[in-house]
């Protein structure tokens, strides 16, 4: 089979790149292993939240020239960064994902543990605040689903109390959740969200919340609503006679999964093809060109393309592989920026910056992969597969995915 572009990886960067290419007339195939970082998203995107010293960034675009030379944003370039940043909201809106927030200025979001974190653009579940001392209201009713442990109401309440909000905790028990509870490991965000979606169980839940509501001016709910349809969030806000604030849960992320499926639908509606639950296992090369790849499920069927986009992520996404001896890129055997000595890979402090998060595939200025010191002609690397950034400490994971996704699409389109 012959395509214009084969994208390897099905996460945020690949979807953004694939949709852009498909909409400009390129015939694309996406090979996706399944889960990706969107499934573990906070529901908010970060562009650049923190400086290396840990201080919060207010205007990300003003910090770009301070980033290291091999940072993905430096490869995208300042002019393109300004252009892309303002393209993000309309792009996602065209895929059915409404994002809130000022593209050029960071806001704050409330985390599930009651702390705050700088955020850039957010899905409709997440409320963004101008100030780091979040002002959600005077008195809050924090309503959980009875027996659901991944929404940590005690932590949240204490965080809010510190910000001057009086909190009351309640748990709503609905018979619809009994079946989930008999298999205790099923009480996870996505399963709960599925039950909420089914037969509009969320309406019963909201009715119970309304019964519990006294004089509180704000109701805090876990992000387990509107998995299929984000309009449910708006309906919930209309049903409850108080301000409704949704707060994230332990992974998997309901807003993240909803976003992923909206982008996948947009890609397919634009004519893109999707190979789900498959992985590239071999490739054929001619000099610095990749001619074709084969996947585990398609067997002998060869997938040819003019361009290949590698977006398989970091270690978790298996875009990078580490053994006791070395770090490598498993699909094409590309050059990886990582020290040989494994004692250089980690910091003994869990919460300190971890060197391994900066590892990634070595690319040229225009995101083309390097292999054995030579620039590949038709392989582009995007997202967290790229080295040079500590996306975790910077708060830049989604930003890097989207910006490099746009950039690679433009490079391929010429």
């Amino acid at each position, binding site marked *: 089979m012959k395509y214009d572009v084969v994208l390897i990886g099905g996460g945020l960067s690949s979807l953004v790149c694939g949709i852009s290419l498909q909409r400009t007339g390129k015939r694309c195939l996406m090979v996706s292993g399944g889960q990706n*970082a969107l499934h*573990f*998203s*906070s529901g908010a995107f*970060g562009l650049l939240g923190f400086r290396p010293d840990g201080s919060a960034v207010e205007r990300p675009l003003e910090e770009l020239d301070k980033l290291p030379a091999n940072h993905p944003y430096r490869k995208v370039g300042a002019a393109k960064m300004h252009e892309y940043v303002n393209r993000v909201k309309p792009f996602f809106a065209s895929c059915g994902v409404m994002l809130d927030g000022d593209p050029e200025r960071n806001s704050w979001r409330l*985390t*599930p*543990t*009651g*702390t*705050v*974190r700088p955020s850039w653009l957010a899905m409709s579940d997440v409320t963004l605040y101008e100030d780091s001392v979040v002002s959600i209201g005077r008195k809050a009713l924090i309503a959980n689903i*009875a*027996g*659901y*442990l*991944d929404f*940590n*109401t*005690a*932590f949240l*309440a*204490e965080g809010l109390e510190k910000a001057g909000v009086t909190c009351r905790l309640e748990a709503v028990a609905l018979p619809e959740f*009994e079946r989930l*509870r*008999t*298999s*205790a*490991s099923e*009480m996870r965000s996505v399963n709960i969200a599925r039950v909420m979606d089914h037969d509009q169980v969320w309406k019963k839940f909201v009715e119970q919340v309304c019964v519990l509501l006294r004089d509180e001016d704000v109701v805090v709910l876990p992000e387990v609503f509107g998995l299929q349809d984000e309009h449910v969030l708006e309906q919930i806000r209309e049903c409850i006679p108080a301000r409704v604030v949704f707060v*994230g849960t*332990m*992974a998997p*992320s309901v807003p993240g999964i909803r976003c992923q499926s909206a982008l996948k639908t947009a890609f397919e509606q634009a004519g893109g093809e999707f190979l789900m639950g498959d992985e590239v296992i071999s490739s054929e090369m001619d000099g610095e060109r990749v001619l074709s790849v084969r996947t585990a499920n398609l067997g002998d069927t060869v997938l040819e393309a003019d361009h290949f986009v590698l977006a398989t992520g*970091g*270690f*978790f996404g*298996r875009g990078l*592989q*580490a*053994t*006791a001896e070395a770090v490598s890129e498993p699909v094409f055997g590309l050059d990886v920026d990582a020290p040989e000595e*494994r*004692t250089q*890979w*980690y*910091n*003994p*402090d*869990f*919460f300190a910056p*971890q060197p*391994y*998060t900066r590892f990634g595939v070595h690319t040229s200025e225009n995101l083309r992969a390097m292999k054995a010191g030579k620039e590949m002609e038709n392989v582009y690397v995007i997202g967290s597969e790229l080295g040079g950034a500590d996306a*975790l*400490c910077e*708060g830049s*994971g989604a930003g890097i995915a989207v910006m490099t996704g746009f950039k690679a699409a433009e490079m391929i389109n010429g």
Partner: protein
Amino acid sequence: MTNKNEFDVIIVGGGITGAGTARDCAMRGLKVLLIERHDIATGATGRNHGLLHSGARYAVTDRESATECIEENKILRKIARHCVDDTSGFFITLPEDDLAYQAKFVESCLAAGIQADIIDPKEAIRLEPSVNPTLIGAVRVPDGSVDPFRLCAANMLDAKLHGAKVLVYTEVESFIMEGDTVLGVRTVDQRTGEKAEYRAAVTVNAAGIWGHHIASLAGVNIGMFPAKGALLIFAHRVNSIVINRCRKPANADILVPGDTVCVIGTTSTRVPYEECDHMHVTPEEVDLLLTEGAKLAPVLENTRILRAYAGVRPLVSADNDPSGRNISRGIVCLDHEVRDGVKGFVSITGGKLMTYRLMAEQAADAVCKKLHVNQVCKTAVTPLPGSATGSVEEVSRKLWSVPVTVQKAAAGRSGDWAEKIAMDHPMDRSLVCECEEVSVGEAEMAIRDLDVHNLTDLRRRTRVGMGTCQAELCACRAAGLLAKAHGCADRARADLKDFMNERWKGMYPVAWGETLREGEFTQWIYKAVLGL
């Protein structure tokens, strides 16, 4: 003697030796106080193989330890049934080993009273498919595995049921002394900074390697030899039978299955006493454990490593042995009045997890002699809480309404004590830890009955966070339960950070492959999503 701070005996150290001694003394009717500066089982007790030695390992080189091991082995199978897994064990001879050693080994085992049957290598492979198929000899012995956390908690619980008072997170700062007599201890509460004094006619130093420091507070020198032992835990139970090498004890020659995992170890290196509180596993040790481990079971080469850890053996110096491999694992019970002229002070050290009960018996005998109390030891015949009634299967059946995996896990961990786990309400059955099947009810029972002050304590009691995900989901859930139980989210949040750091400490020495993947994911969740 009515003052609440007056006791018959004070025991310093909340490892298995201290817990066992507290139980023994309390069962003999003494008024007991046990003081531990951290949580129970934080030292060598929780940092070993969890091997229920048959004694075979020492049969050739250390007859006394071998005999003690097999006797205690038989006793623990009765009194601590719920902590023991009767796996049986092999001593295998590989082509690079001398097969002639096998005859000497079997002869020594039999002389020490340890059953040792030579079996055909093919039969060994049939019984234990993970064993190195190139083996040229195999001997079967009654090895098993034992959960040291469970064993320590059961001893501690029984001591309390017999009236002992247990203070954890309390450090002994100095002894109250009058001339050359120890009258008691001055302590500081590690959490509040509050100071206190406790008095007793006898104080027992059961602080393991840290006993060196405790003894020095009374002006006594015990020549301790800190021997570090590093181990690796693998994410699967690759073997169901303990695999040892049939040769003189050396590095990384024991592979022990335990619960859902298996453990390879150990190394033996003398470390400076000052470093005993800060053990970390070096890359060289990891490489050695992997290379040697793969000789026992080749599949280990491709098995995910969960974590690396190291403990310090509290050996007592005998000669100039740089590794400590040749020092006897025998029990050292010192009456400091006889040895050093210090009255009211006893040290119990040396020994090993396997012989903790015998160590406790010797220490309690010494205490009773000093107190002129004429009571015999009953610990060898009295089952621990958890093993008191019925079998694990019987208890599981009683918990019939609960999902079967949760039942088995809870009954396996707590034995008949599992009946005290609330399971009636559906909420109690929600799972905190999915890898290890720990329910809300079980976690709450541990918080209520088993001196749980933080997440790491909870892990030692219930295995929360010890499974393949290394706590990425359960730590946050358990922190929520602790916040509820202790009414303080701030403390639980700080505790959660400590816990994640403690988990990472065992992961970074083996941070490649699946372990690094899990590490990256966990860091992403806790830092970026949860915002800790």
